[in-house]
């Protein structure tokens, strides 16, 4: 044990004393959370260039309302109410008389105007849009632009057009729109957490408003943190074992320690690296959420599960990585084995979103009980506001524990043969033979 700890300490120091580790510690969350940070920082940065929209109104009754709505918007919503700074583009509506004889040519002409920049987009309102009939084509509203799929103007224009269409339909039905002002008032359905009794006062508390931050962001961030810890420690084991083998350090070490001790020392070193990184991130994370006043959303009760699953995941994947590293005789072998080594850790990342959305579904439950996926997926489910039935994380833990023992056993058998085997490529048949016949 003394030698394992001594060797593990060397592995730990070799990993954390490098500039790469420190840079990685800072950069990894920035890169992984970069999208979110960029979204927050850039969400108010919109293009304020004014936009001209042509309207081909084949109903003859909608265009004027659209002009009025645009003028109203331009007057009220374009400038910041306090600073007066322009924060949105103005929309200018150009009403175009529909061509009855040659609509295709008209569309081409308008498209050419968009191409030459004199127009931003044009919208064509079908003749039956007020009362859609059997001819679906005649009731369509079509928006033409260079990038029509993702366009703020398209999103906006749908509102005033449909408001006007509803007014026209009411009028045709003999109802004055002013008599039913609240007809179009949309009442949203708010998500709430369950109501419970306050243990201290005995009073029935209020259900807490369910937040997307709590439901999705927090569990995903916790799972990503564990994934980050695995990625910061496990692939390194594959490469360092390969280096020790190819640079013949392994033979020197094997004069002092047994192959199994060798492998476990690598794994312990990896665990120490992960604990260091996770301590930095968790303490840093807690300080950040406190600063932002979001600590009520952080599931602190999850931390013991997080660490238990993370440790087992690193032992499980680490033993596997060290074993595969011992089969490599050159750097390109290690490169080609990196993906299969990390695949059990990658797979949960492909399916996490549907699981976070429905954490109690049968898909989520079954996937999170498959041992290689359990650490990441069970942690994700545990982080969701409703949690999971109490038995599931325990069953998951036992499964992971058994699988970890199996991985360490198989890894140890591969490692002890392969570490001294120079010039033998890491073929699947060899790996299986070493694993089961020794």
């Amino acid at each position: 044990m003394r030698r394992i700890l001594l060797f593990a300490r060397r592995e730990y120091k070799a990993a954390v004393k490098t500039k790469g580790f420190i840079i990685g510690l800072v950069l990894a969350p920035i890169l992984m959370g970069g999208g979110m940070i960029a979204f927050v920082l850039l969400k108010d940065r919109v293009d304020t260039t004014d936009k001209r929209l042509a309207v081909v109104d084949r109903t003859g009754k909608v265009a004027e309302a659209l002009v009025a709505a645009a003028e109203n918007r331009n007057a009220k919503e374009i400038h910041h109410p306090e600073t007066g700074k322009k924060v949105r583009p103005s929309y200018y509506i150009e009403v175009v008389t529909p061509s009855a004889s040659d609509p295709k040519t008209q569309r081409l002409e308008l498209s050419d105007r968009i191409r030459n920049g004199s127009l931003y987009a044009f919208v064509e309102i079908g003749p039956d849009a007020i009362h859609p009939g059997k001819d679906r084509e005649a009731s369509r509203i079509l928006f033409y632009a260079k990038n029509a799929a993702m366009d703020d103007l398209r999103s906006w224009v749908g509102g005033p057009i449909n408001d006007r269409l509803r007014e026209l339909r009411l009028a045709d039905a003999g109802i004055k729109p002013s008599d039913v002002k609240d007809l179009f008032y949309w009442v949203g359905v708010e998500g709430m957490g369950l109501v419970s009794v306050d243990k201290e006062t005995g009073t029935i508390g209020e259900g807490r408003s369910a937040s997307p931050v709590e439901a999705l962001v927090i569990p995903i961030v916790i799972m990503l943190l564990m994934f980050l810890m695995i990625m910061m420690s496990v692939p390194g084991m594959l490469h360092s074992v390969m280096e020790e083998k190819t640079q013949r350090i392994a033979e020197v070490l094997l004069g002092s320690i047994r192959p199994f001790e060798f492998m476990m020392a690598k794994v312990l070193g990896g665990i120490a690296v992960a604990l260091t990184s996770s301590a930095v991130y968790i303490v840093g994370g807690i300080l950040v959420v406190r600063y932002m006043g979001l600590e009520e959303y952080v599931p602190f009760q999850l931390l013991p599960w997080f660490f238990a699953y993370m440790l087992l995941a690193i032992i499980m994947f680490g033993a596997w990585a060290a074993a595969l590293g011992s089969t490599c005789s050159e750097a390109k072998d290690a490169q080609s084995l990196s993906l299969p080594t990390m695949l059990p850790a990658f797979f949960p990342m492909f399916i996490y979103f549907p699981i976070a959305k429905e954490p109690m579904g049968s898909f989520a439950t079954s996937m999170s009980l498959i041992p290689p996926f359990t650490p990441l997926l069970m942690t994700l489910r545990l982080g969701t506001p409703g949690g999971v039935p109490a038995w599931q994380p325990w069953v998951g833990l036992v499964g992971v524990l058994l699988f970890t023992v199996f991985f360490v056993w198989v890894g140890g058998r591969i490692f002890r043969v392969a570490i001294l085997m120079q010039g033998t490529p890491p073929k699947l048949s060899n790996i299986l033979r070493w694993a089961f016949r020794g």
Partner: protein
Amino acid sequence: MAAIELESITKTFGKHTAVDTLSLSVPEGSVYGFIGPNGSGKTTTLRMIMNIIPPDSGKIKVLGAPLTPSTTDRIGYMPEERGLYRRMKVRELLQFFGSLKSENNVKTKVDQWLERLDLTAWANKQVETLSKGMAQKVQFIATVVAEPELVLLDEPFTGLDPVNTDVIKDAILGFQARGATVIFSTHDMSMAEKMCDFIFMIFKGKKVLDGTLSSIQDKYATDTLRIRIGDGAGALQNIDGIEKVNDFGQMQELRLAPAADPQKILHEILRRTTVRSFDITKPSLHDIFIRIAGPEAKEVNHA
């Protein structure tokens, strides 16, 4: 007591028998030389003694006991291929390797060895900045810093200049003086002749020589004439009674036919050229090695 006792050990890799029913007894406190051609089984034998790989059959006793992790703690092993962490600093690396073998603090010993091998100035440099010879010396210190009772050195002199060769040679003899047993494999026959109390030769996995140099040489007749002549090896062609000429440039080693008269041969050489020195002797270890493992042995085996 024997430091090492090998009893009919065999090791195969697939269809290849690397070591074949090998028995060997290495006396405590001796310097034992392992010689043999490349791929003959020397390294495999050393690895089995170190418990790095187990034999398929046979028994190994080291320092009076069967092999266990606590036994291997008393052995220092320097493999043929040097293996050092390139990004570690020299002193830090030596303390790490020393601590793996010894529970005692090895810091002082590391510094003493660094000074002895003239590496103190490099103690805080990374291993990757060292020359090949310096790295070799660092590897040697890593092997011996925990003061093992048995030292196994696979090719310890490869890549060393004469000065450093002498430093390592003196260190080996120093271990012997304090009672340690040293085994080293080498392709340098003259070094084996000069340093080893016993020489063991393995060829195709089998033991072919084992004993003191003189006992080995005694198995061969006094059939070797070492000579220095004026006109080089050309003057030695077509002389009756000479079986083989081994030309070293400045000196030639002649193997005489079994019934040949050395006096007559010397007389014939004197007639052809100037003889600066000569010596009628038993074959050198180099010659014995060639006779066993060289092309002529293959010819005899194939005949």
